Each structure stands twice: as structure tokens, then as C-alpha cells.
């Protein structure tokens, strides 16, 4: 029973990690808290839903939805945040703009799509499950862990072992100096939006598959878990987001299993407040916390 709970927690946790990774990448490199990020999660889930309803297999729908969510992220970033970046507005201005935009986008999505819960067409993924030592792992769960693993490793490789990653890290450190050293800041800003939007979209598809329930506001719920994960992991810390995502997912699953499932959504916030009191720099604490 415990082992099964832990596996379920690992599955949920890896989608949290995937989701939080894009959010923390955006914050780390672009220096903004972009609250519309949760919307890309909903966008991804809906795009995959529409694609599979039109007969696409999940193997095509998943990357397609991720890519298109990334494009949505690039457009929204260019419309809302580029003007503020150009005007060197304070960081809270970008938070407020995306806050307003979040409400606007969700209300519009809600008006267009309604809040009805939708489901993937049956047979979109093989329903058989494998059983290892008494633990059931469904195809969906396997796909989630594999997809999350591939995407996370790819991102870590890009960030740490390529020239592109070097440019991104330089941009995160000092945007103006990075520009002087020949980093094409504008292009990298769009690339980061694309990547993180794609991560959000992909995790939307995966969570949609896991619970088989898709509706416009799913991204808003996810966003709250995202805050808890990135603060627990340390704002802008990629490795921290990864570990914190797994921790939050596990603890939520255990709370649902052993306490009551209605309280599981409170776990993230409790962790968030505890982190702020005890260790504001997050799990690994290597980053200098941005103090006021």
C-alpha cells in the first residue's frame, strides 16, 4: 500500500517538477514572475484534447500541444512583458500585468469553452497496466515518468553543457553585460518563453491524461502548487524545482492516502510558509536570496 502510494506520488511529483521547471526557468532567466504561466498548462491540455478528438495519436498530440503552448507563451510575453522590459519597469509591474492578464485569459477561455470537465477519447492510451512486485503502474503513469525524465534531462543538458545554456546563464546573471558579450538577448528571451511554455503545456497534457479531466481552470490550481514548488526549491533554482516538485507530489499523495484527500491541496501552502520562515533560499540554498 505504501509502495503504491509512493509510486503514485512519484508520478504526480514528476509533473509538478516539469511544470515548476518552466516557471523557475522563466523567473531565473527573464527575472519576471509570469502568472499567465498556469494558462499555458490549460492550453496544452486542451490542444492535446482537440488533437486526439480529431484522430491524432497521443504521440503526436503531446509534442504538438507542447510546441503550440510554447508559441502562445512567446506571443503573450511579447505583448505584455516586452513593453515593460523596455521601460525598465519595477518587477512588481510585470507581476501585476500578468495577474490581470491571467484573469482576462481564464474568463475568456471559460466563456469560449465552458467549465464542463472534458475527457480524452477512449483508447487514446493503452489501458493495460504492468505489475511489478504488487505495484500497479499504468501506461499513462509510465508515459508521465518517461516524458518528464526525458524533458528534464534535455533541459539540464542544454543549460549546463551547451553554448546556448551558457548564453542563458549569462542572461540570467547580468542581462546588459550578456548583451555586450554578443548574446542575442531578444532571441533568447523568446526561446526561454517558448521552452517554458512548452514545459507547461506538456505537463498539462500529462496531468490531463493522469486524471482524465480537462477544464479551463486546471492551470490555476496547478499554479498554486507551482508557487509552493519553486519557493521550496528556491526561486530560479532548476535542480531545486526538480526535487521540490517530487517532494510536494509525494507529500500530497501521502496526505490524500493517510489523512483526507480534501486536505491535499493545502500541503503546498504549508510547505511554502514553512520554507519562507525557516529557509527562504529554498532547499539547496546556494542562491543568494534576493533581499529587498
Amino acid at each position, binding site marked *: 500500500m505504501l509502495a503504491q502510494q509512493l509510486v503514485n506520488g512519484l508520478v504526480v511529483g514528476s509533473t509538478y517538477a516539469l511544470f515548476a521547471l518552466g516557471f523557475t526557468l522563466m523567473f531565473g532567466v527573464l527575472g519576471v*514572475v509570469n502568472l499567465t504561466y498556469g494558462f499555458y498548462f490549460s492550453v496544452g491540455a486542451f490542444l492535446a484534447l482537440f488533437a486526439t478528438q480529431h484522430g491524432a495519436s497521443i504521440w503526436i498530440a503531446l509534442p504538438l500541444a507542447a510546441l503550440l503552448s510554447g508559441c502562445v507563451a512567446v506571443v503573450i510575453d511579447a505583448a*505584455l512583458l516586452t*513593453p*515593460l522590459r523596455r521601460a525598465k*519597469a*519595477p*518587477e*512588481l*509591474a510585470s*507581476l*501585476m*500585468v500578468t*495577474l*490581470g*492578464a*491571467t*484573469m*482576462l*485569459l*481564464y*474568463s*475568456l477561455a471559460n*466563456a469560449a469553452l465552458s467549465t464542463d470537465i472534458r475527457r480524452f477519447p477512449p483508447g487514446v492510451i493503452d489501458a493495460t497496466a504492468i505489475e511489478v512486485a504488487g505495484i500497479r503502474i499504468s501506461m499513462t503513469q509510465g508515459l508521465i515518468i518517461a516524458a518528464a525524465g526525458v524533458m528534464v534531462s534535455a533541459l539540464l543538458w542544454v543549460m549546463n553543457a551547451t553554448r546556448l545554456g551558457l548564453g542563458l546563464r549569462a542572461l540570467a546573471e547580468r542581462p546588459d553585460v550578456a548583451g555586450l558579450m554578443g548574446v542575442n538577448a531578444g532571441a533568447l528571451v523568446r526561446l526561454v518563453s517558448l521552452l517554458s511554455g512548452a514545459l507547461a503545456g506538456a505537463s498539462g497534457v500529462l496531468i490531463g491524461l493522469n486524471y482524465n479531466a480537462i477544464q479551463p481552470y486546471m492551470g*490555476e490550481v496547478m499554479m*498554486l502548487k507551482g*508557487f*509552493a514548488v519553486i*519557493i521550496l526549491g528556491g*526561486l530560479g533554482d532548476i535542480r531545486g524545482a526538480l526535487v521540490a516538485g517530487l517532494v510536494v507530489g509525494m507529500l500530497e499523495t501521502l496526505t490524500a492516502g493517510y489523512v*483526507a484527500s*480534501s*486536505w491535499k*491541496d*493545502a500541503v*503546498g*501552502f*504549508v510547505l*511554502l*510558509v514553512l520554507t*519562507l*520562515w525557516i529557509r*527562504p533560499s529554498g532547499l539547496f540554498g546556494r542562491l543568494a*536570496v*534576493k*533581499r*529587498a
Partner: protein
Amino acid sequence: MAEFLDDFLFTYQNLVYSLGVNGLLALSIYVVLAVGQLSIGQAAFMGLGAYVSALLTVKLGVAFPLVLLAAMITPALAALVVGAPTLRLSGVYLALATIGLGEVQRIVFINAEFTGGALGLSGIPTRGGLISIYGSLALALVAFVCVARSKIGRAMEAMREDELAAGALGVDLPAYKLGALVVSAMLAGLAGALNAHVSSFISPNDYGFDAAVTILSFALLGGIGSPFGPVLGAFILTLLPEVLRPLADYKTVVNGAIIVVAVIFMPRGLLAWRMGRAGAAFRRPK
């Protein structure tokens, strides 16, 4: 005339009440924005005030003034728990923590037995009314105008414009920020309690994310140069859906769009003038 006024009040009672309550909420977010911070927990503080006051009135029959006091103190404590660790960090942390506060509070209200669960609390007896709502609004406005014209107001404005410089000039940044958040939580709690006692019914979903963003849109539309800006913004945004009926269904779309437009195109809001300083007339250079 008196008869007309009575008729008018009877027909538009709820609107008149919500104008006053929203004015108070606008002032509550104003205090936080005035020191250059962003709280998305105003709706949560309001909800806490509403629930505490309603429970005290319904279950224990406590006198109304004491109920209001409790409705101000409880959110202030919540503000301390969330604010004390975050206000020493960059402004992003407070914003994220307060969004979380609103959500977790909603979960508690929905799941706890004594708060009436998802159905909320109904049958709250009517207390207060016009005089207590508009009296509180007037008192708060006068107090904020006095503060804005004083040394404290100047310090707050300095923090908002350039925190680093204000700190270097001796402004106690963490104390001001925490003080502002606590005052703001108290005001929001008061607004929640007053509102609960004129509307007789409260439910957990009244105090969610949309409510918090709406409160922020009041202040951003009106501008935060003076306390009058946010109140003006609240009045406009409360009346707008009443005047333009078709807009009522798209209230959240409009409020969201106002925030986006206000931050990008008119960062100073509608009422852009700043408060003068007390005694400035006597000190004008020749």
C-alpha cells in the same frame, strides 16, 4: 425628498452597500501598494474578517463593536504570519505567499464543519448598515489623508519610488512594510465583517482569486498617488456593470483588461495628482 431617498435606498440598497465596502477594500490594497509592495491576499483577509464576525454573531451573540474588533485582529495575525518572513525578501515573495493564503483559506472554509462547508453561512443577522459602512470609509479616508501629508506618508512615497534610496536615508523598510500589511489586513477584515452583516450570507468562493484581482484593479484604475484614487476606482468599477448591463457578464474580463492597460499605459492611474505635505505652504522657497 426624504421619501424619494427612502425609495432610492430601498431599490439600490445592495449597490449602495457594496460601493462603501469596495471603497474600504480599495483603501486596504492602497496601503500595501503605497509602500511599493503587492498583496494578492486582500480577498483572503476580507473573507477571514467575514467568517470570524459571522461566527461570533451567529454562534456566540457577541456585541457588534466587539465583533468588528475581532474581525480586524484575526486577519492582522494572518498578515503577520505571512508577512513577517516575506517582507524582508524581494516583493515577489509576498505576492506569491498571499495568493497561497487565499487558496488554503478557501480549502479550510470548505472542509471545516463549523464554517458551514461549501454552502457557506447563511442567516447572518443584519447589523450596522449605511452609517457604519460609510462612517468607516470616511474615517479611513481622513486617517490616510493625514498620514499621506505627514512624515510617514513621505517615507512611504520615497519607498515606493526608490526603495534603496529610502532605506539609505534611514527609512525603516521592514517596519513600514509590515505595518502597512497589517493595517491593510485590518481594513479588509473590517470590510468583510460589515459586508457579511448587511448581505446575511457568505460562502467560501466569494473570497477567491477573482475577488483579490478585482480589488487590485480598483487601485490600479484610480491610481495610488492619493487615497482618493483607489476609492474612485472602486466606485467606477462597482457602478460600471450596473450602468452597462451587458458588461455584467464580463466583469472579470473587464477588470483583468483594466489591470493590463493601467500597468502598461497609465501607471499613475486616473487620479494622478500627489498629496501635498502638511505645512508646505509655510515652507515654500521665496
